[in-house]
């Protein structure tokens, strides 16, 4: 009976998968040629890399809301409270500590490069932030970085800075014609400003998902 049920499930899944694949192949070609549209507006975007141009200029809304969602996720997690079991009892491991110490400066360098490279080739705020957050997680596991439950004022500001700067730039665009409409001659600078603040905030948010927890160390050591 169980085997029969399983067989039926597998058959149903196969059927669904094949049906989906078939309908994908049957889709009519998209009515708008997005790549061409993007390519023809690249000179107004302020950057030289189409992905960055789409993410931060043509479709800035999506990125703005994505950042807001991430911040809300962390706030929700902090509000829900962390489990008291989150021990700061990662074992002392000399190799791990040495590795974390050696890798962190490189991670910061790579993050800076990724952020800068976003303007003209693959890279950007999200990738840079993920690398920074990875370094923070490594430091936490090695016991070099304390965890935090209630972020101090500076940390709160840094967590929200990305979204605030993005919102500020988006709103100031209102005076010039529309939400998130950058003047072309300023677009490059504005995008770099947004991406830099986003990198800091996103790195802290992503790392915060891992770092949030009761802390045994005094608050002035928290960063």
């Amino acid at each position, binding site marked *: 009976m169980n085997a029969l049920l399983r067989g039926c499930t597998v058959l149903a899944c196969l059927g669904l998968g094949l049906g989906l694949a078939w309908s994908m192949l049957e889709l009519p070609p998209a009515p708008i040629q997005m790549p061409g549209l993007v390519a023809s507006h690249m000179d107004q975007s302020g950057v030289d890399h189409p992905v960055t141009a789409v993410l931060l200029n043509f479709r800035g809304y999506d990125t703005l809301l994505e950042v807001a969602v991430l911040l809300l996720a962390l706030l929700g997690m902090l509000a829900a409270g962390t489990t008291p079991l*989150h021990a700061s009892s990662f074992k002392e491991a000399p190799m791990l500590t040495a590795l974390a110490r050696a890798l962190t400066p490189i991670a910061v360098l790579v993050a800076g490069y990724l952020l800068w490279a976003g303007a003209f080739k693959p890279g950007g705020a999200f990738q840079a932030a993920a690398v920074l957050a990875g370094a923070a997680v490594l430091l936490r596991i090695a016991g070099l970085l304390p965890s935090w439950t209630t972020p101090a004022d500076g940390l709160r500001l840094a967590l929200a800075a990305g979204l605030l700067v993005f919102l500020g730039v988006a709103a100031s665009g209102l005076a010039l014609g529309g939400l998130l409409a950058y003047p072309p001659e300023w677009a490059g600078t504005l995008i770099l400003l947004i991406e830099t603040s986003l990198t800091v905030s996103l790195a802290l948010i992503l790392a915060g998902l891992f770092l949030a927890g009761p802390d045994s160390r005094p608050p002035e050591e928290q960063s």
Partner: protein
Amino acid sequence: MPDLPILDLTLAAALLFTGWRTLAAPDLFKAVVLFIVFGLFMALAWARLEAPDIALAEAAIGAGLTGALLLDALGHLRARRHGRSLQDPQP
């Protein structure tokens, strides 16, 4: 004999295999490790599809950070099961 895209075929097979193993693994720790491996293969696949932006994001966020978070959660689960002392997040 026509030129077979051996690398791509292997990659697709590895993706399907690790995906299936991730879902089917009875041991949660094994499943998390397989999930990380799946993320790395996925990043390779994005790179092969000439989407380096997504490949970077997948490797850093999908495989790296999500893997760390899942391992952390696993540590919590084990600690809760074995009482209050969290000795080691990994078995």
